């Protein structure tokens, strides 16, 4: 790369190298800043190259993200980032594509595309910033808002039930599902690295605090003071413990439900070991009602399957193999005849 260009990023780049000259225009204190920082920190760690990286977004606060990453970027239209990412990846599978979306963009107006992205398993990283509110349109209830959410569009409280993003992703056939928190600066890069390593749609839900329209909606489990008791960080092959190892999860085999048990004197034999390839366990962790249970975070499910663009390109190659792309021959196919001479018409 030409060192003269302002946007040349040296090998072993620092996070700052991934920032653009554009002024970041999120509200002061917005959780998006923390996520941006974490993504910029992750880029050097995964050995990303700016020219091979594309950030694609829809519409909403989170979707401004591409403007702040010194990579290729496409800020598209509401809900449609997965569709544009699909075209990009099918046209050039070498590109490393990240989709940035939110709860409204990804699960409401773009819910259909989310479903099909996940079932096809296109090789992209999808970061869903969930703040349970429409921020950019000034605070209406979103599809993840809890029942009873008061907002300008639901002044008497919302009456519809929210969607659980990770449950949606799992139901849609997603093969990599992770959950984290905007302020978990240590954990986000770990999860992003895992998401990046997975070949397929890596679905990462990030609880993101909207300081203006939905402040502290996640405080019950994001509050640092209480984090140990309210957060359960799942790690593959390790027991599902929280509260500094004093509590754990056990499967009640009679009811096929999880239950919280106290760990007495380190006796963890009955605690479930996290198996991220176990879809049933992922479902149980995702569905745990918060309060009675801690919030399950980390890589909840990872069971890789062939990615969509690989399958498409393999078929394209297989079908084309041995065939000559002769356009003149192609257009001459079909029911044909030759008129030899203008004077004699019969063939």
């Amino acid at each position, binding site marked *: *790369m*030409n060192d*003269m*260009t302002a*946007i*040349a990023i040296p090998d072993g780049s620092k996070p700052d190298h991934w920032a653009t*000259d*554009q002024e970041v225009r999120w509200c002061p204190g917005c959780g998006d800043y923390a996520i941006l920082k974490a993504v910029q920190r992750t880029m050097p760690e995964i050995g990303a190259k*700016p*020219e*091979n990286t*594309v950030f694609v977004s829809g*519409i909403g606060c989170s979707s401004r993200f*591409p*403007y702040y990453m010194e*990579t*290729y*970027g*496409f*800020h*598209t*239209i*509401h809900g*449609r980032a997965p*569709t*544009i*990412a*699909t*075209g*990009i990846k*099918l*046209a*050039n599978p070498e*590109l490393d594509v990240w989709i940035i979306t939110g709860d409204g963009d990804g699960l409401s107006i773009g819910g*259909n*595309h989310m479903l*099909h992205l996940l079932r096809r398993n296109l090789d992209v990283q999808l970061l869903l910033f969930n703040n349970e509110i429409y921020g950019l349109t000034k605070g209406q209830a979103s599809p993840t808002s809890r029942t009873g959410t008061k907002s300008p569009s639901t002044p008497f409280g919302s009456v519809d039930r929210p969607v659980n993003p990770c449950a949606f992703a799992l139901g849609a056939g997603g093969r990599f599902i992770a959950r984290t928190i905007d302020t978990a600066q240590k954990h986000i890069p770990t999860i992003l690295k895992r998401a990046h390593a997975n070949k397929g749609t890596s679905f990462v839900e990030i609880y993101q605090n909207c300081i203006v329209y939905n402040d502290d909606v996640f405080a019950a489990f994001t509050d640092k003071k209480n984090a140990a008791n309210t957060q359960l960080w799942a790690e593959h092959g390790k027991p599902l413990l929280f509260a500094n190892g004093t509590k754990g999860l056990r499967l009640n085999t009679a009811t096929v439900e999880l239950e919280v048990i106290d760990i007495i004197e380190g006796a963890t034999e009955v605690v479930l070991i996290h198996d991220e390839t176990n879809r049933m366990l992922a479902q149980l962790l995702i569905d745990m009602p918060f309060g009675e249970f801690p919030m399950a975070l980390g890589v909840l499910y990872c069971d890789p399957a062939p990615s969509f663009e690989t399958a*498409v390109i393999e*078929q394209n190659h297989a079908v*084309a193999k041995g*065939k*000559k*792309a002769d*356009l*003149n021959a*192609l*257009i*001459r*196919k*079909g*029911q*044909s*005849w*030759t*008129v030899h*001479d*203008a004077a004699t*018409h*019969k*063939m």
Partner: protein
Amino acid sequence: MATALKDNFESSARLSNHPDAVVVRFAGDSGDGMQLTGGQFTLSSALAGNDFSTFPDFPAEIRAPQGTTFGVSAFQVNFGSSDIETAGDQPDVLIAMNPAALKTNVGDLRPGGLVIADTGEFGQRNLAKAGYTVSPIDDNSLARWQVLAFDISALTLEAVKPFGLGNKEALRCKNMWTLGLSLWMFDRDRAPLIAWLQDKFAKNPVLADANIAALNAGHAYGETAEIGGPLRQWTVDAASVEPGYYRTITGGESLSLGLVAGARLAGLDLFLGSYPITPASPILHALARLKEFGVTSFQAEDEIAAIGAAIGASYAGQLGVTSSSGPGIALKGEAIGLAIITELPLVIVNSQRGGPSTGLPTKTEQSDLYQAIYGRNGDAPLVVLSTSSPTDCFDVAIEAVRLATQFMTPVMLLTDGYIANAAQPWLVPDMDDYEPFPVVFHTEAPAEGKFNPYQRDAETLKRVWVKPGTPGLTHRIGGIEKGFDTGNINYEAANHQKMTDTRANKILGIANHIPDQDIDQGAAGGKLVVVGWGSTYGPIRKAVEAARARGLDVSHIHIRYLWPLPKNLGDLLKSFDKILVPEMNTGQLKTVLRDQYLVDAKPLNKVSGQPFKIAEIEAAIDAELARKG
């Protein structure tokens, strides 16, 4: 019966034994194989050297209840020794496989024309389903036409008896029996059809033999039956056509091949994002098979995803194409705006059908012109092209690719259900005669300072096309107003004015890079010009030809470039006293012409789901010339 009809036949205006052209319509139940029969009959006409044009007319229902009027499927072919431009105003011969087919089609038949009906299907049940209380064959209600009614079903069963088929399977050979008779009527060679049947039923030789036997029996029936009267042979000479290699081609096939050819000429791989919709699906089906030509086809989850993926592919450096019909194009509207503001190449094919809403999925119309030119939020200009016939689709598709890639713009290509399904003989071109227009991607990083993704060519105003993956040129684009040059978000008033003007001027400037409008027939200037676009080409051409043969001062202009319009069009229109605009809509091009040129364009509109008849346009020409003022 034959004797009585013979008298009637003699007294009617009718075909000579040696006509210039004949129009035959095959009509039957959806399950009777009429499209196949018509297609094969067309091929036999092509092989006999006739020029031809076809009009398949089938119901929206896949398997409508048997015997009902709404389940009738018809295929019309006009073939002859003269220049054929339409599927024909009125059939000369109607082959009706059941009462419903007779009922829904006989009204179109030319007075004195010939009806061939299968009485085996004229039982009480089928008559009732078609709404007849008495068989029309018996009550003299068909007196205006020649009727040849006999039990084709029984004759078919007899012919295929040796093959031991079940009754249902045996009766399915009826269409081949009818085709055999038709081949005899026009003195056609059976050999290619026999070869085709052997190939089609290669895995089931019994079915092949049964169908061939039915075909032969129908042919023999014509040869040996001493019915006389209406059943006789006609001789239709071969057309005087340019020597060369011909094939039959539908508009759907021609357009698909044109897109592939265009992509090759641009040096690009082609990406089609599409969602199934009538009558556009044949393009998806055709392109899905052409992977060795660098084609990736993607059947998306919906119309929006289809165009979204096409835009993504264009962004990544392929030729993005999306194909749909009016309702689908409506869904794509916002994404088309994104392609306009990000100034990416994109070809959007609209195979128009009757609207609004779901409208008439299988019937033709050209009522999406406003949608194409104006149908988006904001000032959102793009290029609009139209195809005028099945064979024309090939070159127009190439032109759409050229303009999209050379000017970094979406191009809307308007075709319609009639063109998509109709077939014509095509003098196949040599691709080596086409001038390539290779795309040059921008790869050079600026020596200093930032790269500006919206830097433009000073003359054409097109911006640079950079493929992600190119080192040193990382940049961001999107749907928010761009800063001139930089492409960064910019809300400034003066910038929006400048960008809106630039987008409009870029498209208008394309008028400098397209051919001047030509005159299809007649002089530049005079009493009347008939101005058309799209699939009205055939009937307008023939109507103007006929009017001019009668000494009338009328010319024909057919517009391919609908936006931007050719530079000389205004002057050309103003050189005529009167302007008549026939359209299969309520007057959309008429409005555009009035708006652009302040000319008194008069509409001639038809929205019946059927193409114009030549006679309808000729009558309008007469009326317009007779009108004072």
